[in-house]
């Protein structure tokens, strides 16, 4: 079938390898050596790869084919808690409170399963940020919990305002039993990185309103803005001291799917519970006991959390790869800003972190009018974009944004060439679109 393009480029969701980013060599060498241990004895692989693979294999019972829960999990949990203690500069982490998952979405789903109460009224509610992929997504819908939207401030770089949380909570209480607040930091697709003050406000809010706090920190490795720093919710909570630090029930979620690793297909992630009732944690264990997690994903997670040290043979190359990814991202963001912000009818906010850009569309009235016949205007825009150029981006309405403002989300974890092509197709389409509907 003839089309004006050879292939579809999908940047509507965060799938780095599919859009040209390369896996980290060290991770894959270790995984391959664990899969085929003959490689450990040969000198094809660098020494540090062989050593790491050997250690990991011993920890998981000698084969990546074993059920991980019968043998490997305690070791992985220890790795995670060591990493967290280091990351949070001494705030202790106990491996008994770490749960290995398939990834962040899965972790979120497990938490929701713990909350819901079947069909009994009132339904349990979770305050969920808009815009975000999780709002109205299947995990929430299928779980039986009600997603209560709270709107991030599009005029101020997508910040959270406590007043907005208050409003959302008040309206939620009329229709459900709100029990948790879900935050994503760094934000996705917003690219907003929360300040410590903002995080402290959130913690105070959940403490006063008696809510659980779920923090998705999947993009913690990707910081682009000058002077931007990621602090974990756990660290902020601990440093706030009593009464918050021993009362607020916090669940932090992370994975190897994003960041430099981008290993979404391998399914490695974890969540950490802080201040949860110990008997509830036992029930969480019971829920998890039905699951069997892929070992390969946990290997990827382990390498991510326990990276190479200076002096090791693969260290330099590893650092080069990270540097290259960083440079690619900065380049992509700069280019995207250059190209898109200069077009009429699109405006871009600078992003500080995360893996997406979220430009705003200022659509002409004619387009909005025509769209409304069948669908939401930004969806209309994205459908035409896909049909005409083979470029797939995500409409802001899919992420919960209400009528009136229109956005598209495009992922920036792509190779430089892919980003050029994305911008070429998008730029060309957009100019034509604005002309056609002027």
């Amino acid at each position, binding site marked *: 079938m003839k089309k004006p393009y050879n292939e579809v480029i999908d940047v509507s969701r965060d799938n780095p390898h599919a859009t040209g980013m390369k896996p980290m060599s060290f991770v894959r060498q270790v*995984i391959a050596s664990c899969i085929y241990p003959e490689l450990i004895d040969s000198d*094809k692989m660098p020494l540090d790869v062989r050593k790491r693979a050997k250690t990991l294999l011993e920890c998981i019972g*000698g084969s990546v084919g*074993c059920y991980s829960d*019968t043998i490997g999990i305690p070791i992985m949990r220890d790795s995670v808690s060591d990493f967290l203690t280091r990351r949070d500069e001494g705030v202790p982490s106990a491996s008994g409170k770490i749960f290995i998952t398939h990834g962040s979405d899965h972790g979120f789903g497990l938490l929701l399963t713990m909350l819901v*109460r079947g069909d009994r009224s009132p339904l349990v509610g979770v305050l969920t940020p808009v815009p975000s992929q999780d709002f109205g997504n299947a995990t929430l819908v299928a779980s039986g919990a009600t997603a209560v939207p709270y709107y991030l401030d599009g005029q101020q770089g997508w910040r959270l305002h406590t007043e907005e949380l208050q409003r959302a909570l008040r309206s939620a209480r009329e229709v459900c039993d709100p029990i948790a607040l879900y935050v994503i930091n760094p934000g996705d697709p917003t690219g907003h990185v929360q300040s410590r003050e903002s995080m402290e406000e959130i913690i105070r809010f959940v403490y006063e309103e008696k809510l*659980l706090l779920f923090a998705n920190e999947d993009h913690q490795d990707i910081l682009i803005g000058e002077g931007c720093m990621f602090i974990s919710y756990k660290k902020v909570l601990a440093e706030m001291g009593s009464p918050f630090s021993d009362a607020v029930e916090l669940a932090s979620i992370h994975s190897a799917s994003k960041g430099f690793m981008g290993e*979404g297909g391998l399914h490695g992630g974890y969540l950490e519970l802080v*201040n949860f009732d110990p008997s509830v944690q036992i029930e969480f264990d*019971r829920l998890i006991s039905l699951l069997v997690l892929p070992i390969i994903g946990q290997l990827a997670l382990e390498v991510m959390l326990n990276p190479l040290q200076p002096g090791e043979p693969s260290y330099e190359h590893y650092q080069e790869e990270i540097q290259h990814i960083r440079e690619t991202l900065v380049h992509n963001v700069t280019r995207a800003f250059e190209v898109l912000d200069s077009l009429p009818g699109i405006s871009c906010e600078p992003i500080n972190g995360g893996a997406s850009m979220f430009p705003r569309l200022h659509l002409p009235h004619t387009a909005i009018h025509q769209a409304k016949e069948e669908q939401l205007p930004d969806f209309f825009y994205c459908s035409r974009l896909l049909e005409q150029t083979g470029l797939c981006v995500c409409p802001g309405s899919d992420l919960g944004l209400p009528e009136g403002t229109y956005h598209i989300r495009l992922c920036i974890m792509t190779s430089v060439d892919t980003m050029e092509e994305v911008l070429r197709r998008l730029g060309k389409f957009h100019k034509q679109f604005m002309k056609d509907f002027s």
Partner: protein
Amino acid sequence: MWFWGVSAVIFDKGSRTINDACLIYCLPGGGVELNPIPISLYLYILCYTISLQQRGTSAANMSQKEVNGSSHRGKVLTLETMNQNVRQVEYAVRGPMVLRAVQIEEELKKGVKKPFTEVIKANVGDAHAMGQKPITFIRQVLALCAYPALLEDDKFPEDAKLRARRILDGCGGQSIGAYSASQGIECIRKDVASYIEKRDGGIPSNHENIYLSTGASDAIVTMLKLLICGEGRTRTGVMISIPQYPLYSAALTELQGVQINYYLDEDKCWGLDVGELRRSLTAAREHCNPRALCIINPGNPTGQVQSRQCIEDVIRFAKEEGLLLMADEVYQDNVYAEGCVFHSFKKVLFEMGPEFSSVVELVSFHSTSKCYMGECGFRGGYMEVVNLDPEVKAQLTKLVSVRLCSPVSGQALMDVVVNPPQPGEPSYATFTKERAAVLADLAEKAKLTEESFNNVPGFHCNPVQGAMYTFPRITIPQKAIDQAKAAGQAPDQMYCMKLLETTGICLVPGSGFGQREGTFHFRMTILPPKEKLKYVLEKIAEFNAQFLQDYS
């Protein structure tokens, strides 16, 4: 019978009045029975239960306060406020026995003296953990997929490289780290369909009917989610064989489906009898809406391989009664006994002619965790759906598509399993040899186990025709039964605990799988290496003799 729970079952839509309520009794064997009760009694029990829980919760909170030193503040998420279904979930295979086994391992590490030097985990079907070797060809292909630079390495055979390249071409960006389409990588689904066609003598298989999943368990739970609906008397019931693999009961508990038990006949080698299916179904129709029949062939924990006649009978029964068939066939290569053959449900269905093959709704499950591969850690699996209503299938595809795909490394593994070396290819000879060795070893251990156990006084062990387990019936003296019951333990649970403490051997008590009232069993895997297996069999015989003596 134990009182299991109270359920506020039916709210009149819109008016929020309780129409009906019942007490749920847990039957030995794991089934449930519902008895309607007056609303007043229900409310009384509910209040009493809540007050008990509150007392318990306040106690917990008190100690939390003491520990945390925080001021009077309860937890947001408590045993009382959380999802009650999760609390009911039990999965014996990884339950209390395993927890204790892990504890004992820690104690051994710390140097605590015991009458044994290691814990032998004969409770779960984890072949590699028990020393089974992975198949070389499989690991070569997967290593190539994980680190494609190895494609330049001439240590790897061409046929492995060919398959790796095919798989990588199906992956986004040639990487197994990219998310794939949720239903699974298309070229792999096509390979699965070809495999099924070949296996079933040419009966066509369409890759659009194949869903790659995270092990078979994931696909089974997905189908159950699709099936379970209704309320009270119209709540979906699912027929499962007793003894059963407790994933089914655990999933039904979590999803609030109704479990309908049908008993396999221990005296007839765990055979399935249609009369028993009918009895069970008729009784179930009193309190729920039976919609599916699950069957595991070869069986877990029972190890029987169903005869072709039996499979035809089940298909006929499913057609007559309007039931969807769920055929769990993960052990399809594990067939040992003389005269036993694996017949896939799909093949038999189609060979019964269009009267059945165009009507009966069938879902078949397979996995990479068992058979000769034993690759549990990869989480590879698939289901094939046959004769589903097209609109339902669209819903299934939707349900699957809003989740993430199954792990891509597991999908890759499944591709190798369905696309093994062919005669003439470089790896064919080694592959065939390794595969045959694994299966022959299992067959030998199956025979050894059956013979051994049948020589133990008080044991009756059916032939292990297939799968990986033995499920002997054991004798527990009345004195032991009484002691167990007084301690609130199932007698075979007590037996297995004592066995664990005395010998370090971890098994799963039969009560975890369901069994006829008054009978006791345990499930043991036949996976330990032969010498270790002999040791295990000896130790169990010794323990059993002592046990019978102690409780005579």
